[in-house]
């Protein structure tokens, strides 16, 4: 077997599992697709339109200037979030969201809240280095 062919065989045995893994993830998503969640979906686009992720995190991913918003909906409530959206803060500008945008965004945050807990304290650390929630 030539040197090049040996390397191609190794590449093949890496590519096949990679593509299978990718295909598996695409077809068997962690959460089943729900086409009825149109308003939550619109809320996600509002989140992206105003680049909220620049300052806020969801599940610990995003910016560091503001708090993680994963479970903010249940922790602080809708009115509290609405107040921040309307007035802004020292660092956060007033985005002048329309009422529809505000409602969609709130539904999106509610949906995130229902998806799980991001608080690291809720994880159990095992001796083999893994974690459980």
């Amino acid at each position, binding site marked *: 077997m030539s040197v090049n062919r040996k390397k191609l065989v190794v590449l093949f045995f890496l590519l096949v599992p990679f593509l299978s893994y990718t295909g598996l993830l695409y077809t*068997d998503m962690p959460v089943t697709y729900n086409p009825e969640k149109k308003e939550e979906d619109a809320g996600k686009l509002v989140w992206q339109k105003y680049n909220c992720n620049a300052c806020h995190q969801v599940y610990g991913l995003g910016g560091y200037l503001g708090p993680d918003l994963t479970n903010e909906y249940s922790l602080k409530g809708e009115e509290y979030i609405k107040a921040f959206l309307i007035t802004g803060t*020292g660092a956060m500008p007033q985005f002048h969201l329309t009422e529809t945008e505000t409602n969609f965004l709130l539904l999106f945050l509610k949906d995130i809240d229902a998806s799980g807990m991001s608080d690291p304290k809720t994880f159990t650390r095992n001796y083999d280095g893994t974690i459980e929630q």
Partner: protein
Amino acid sequence: MMEPLNSNTLSTSKLFIIAGLLLLAVGMLFGLTGALQYLVPDFIKQYLSFEKVRPLHVSSVVFWIIFAAMGSVLTFLQQYSGKEIFSPILLRIQFGIFTMSVLAILVSYCWGVFGGREYWEFHPVFALPLAIGWILFIVNFLKSLGSFQNLPVYVWMWLTGLFFFLFTFMESYLWLFPYFRNNIINDITIQWKSYGSMVGSWNMLIYGSSIFLMEKISGNKKYGHAPIAFLLYFTGLFNLMFNWGHHIYTLPTHAFVKHISYAVSMTELFILGRIIWQWKSSVSAARKHYHHTAYRFLMAADLWIFLTLLLAIAMSIPAINVYTHGTHITVAHTMGATIGINSFLLLAIAFDILKDSCMPFSKSLKWINRGYYMANVSLFIFWISLIMAGILKAKWQMSDAKIPFSTMMLQLRPYFILFFISGIALVSGFYLIIVPLLRNQAICYYRALSQKHVVKPHKISAMYTMD
């Protein structure tokens, strides 16, 4: 025997490096502005609030890496094959597409136009020209490569980077389909699958070019075909494909994603072990080649690879990651990787590629050296300040006392001040390095213009000479 190269396509390849350096210069200023907004939250808030400054910084520096990586591959490919690039027109179109797209992206941020996700915050319409530009890059690369027989490891790395970047870039836009976007868990899972591998893809381009450069400096052509080089390449590829899950250990996604990532990440210990094993020979090689400006940057990157890899391996253990995730320790890791590794490697490459200009760097060497030490020392302080801020935030995250977020941020303030001050020193150090590079190119360009002739094609006979 290597054929002489026409300098026209090499000049276009150099333009990618020059454009990248300009983006770096601008991106660092946005970075400083963002760091200042941590201390003075309403600083220029009416004009450039943080949600604009952050993507301006991130996109500028990400495109510095992408432009310089493209420039290095295009230049070294021509030196490797001894031939001009297949299509100079495609090359110019590729450059034009990328330059115009990036300019439009930066302007759109200033106007508050977003629509994308973290790291690619620009409106998704800009993704299309970027993907087309990348496809042109792939076509030109494949057509210029010639024979596929007995390719050295750096060509394998370039090919891997080229195809995986395109794949992961397109994958990162699957959110455009509601099926992928509709649930936050699905969306984040696919987002970080693509991002984790995408970083690995541009690393393949940069590390491949760095290996090519090391061969040029040392004159030793054996490494490119050595079994250990391929073993490390396949380890890197294995990690590129499967270790992205460490970004989402705390996300309620498939458990197998996390287990696979944890197991695969541990193979990086092999790379870490090799760095430690090679330390002595690296130091003696450093002494031998220390007079090369390019080599010095490679050496600095070597040290940062060690520090960053150490942190990355620790963060790949879920039980440690649960503390560091969402804290500034993650930022420290990113800064170590993008500044300490990627930027230093790309600067080494930039010095090698841009040294063939109409004037030598000898007059600026003193300042470049000062910049080199300033950048390295300040980067270390910068890195430590982020780790310290991260440790405090981790402590706050794990604490049962309900201290408000704003109070915690005030406690982190001393480290943000240190971060900002060391950031100024870091940017100053980088400017001392990149200004001479850019000035030389500008002088040569205007000299050529004033002599009313375009730079004539010349034979690059000193292609493998040192600076």
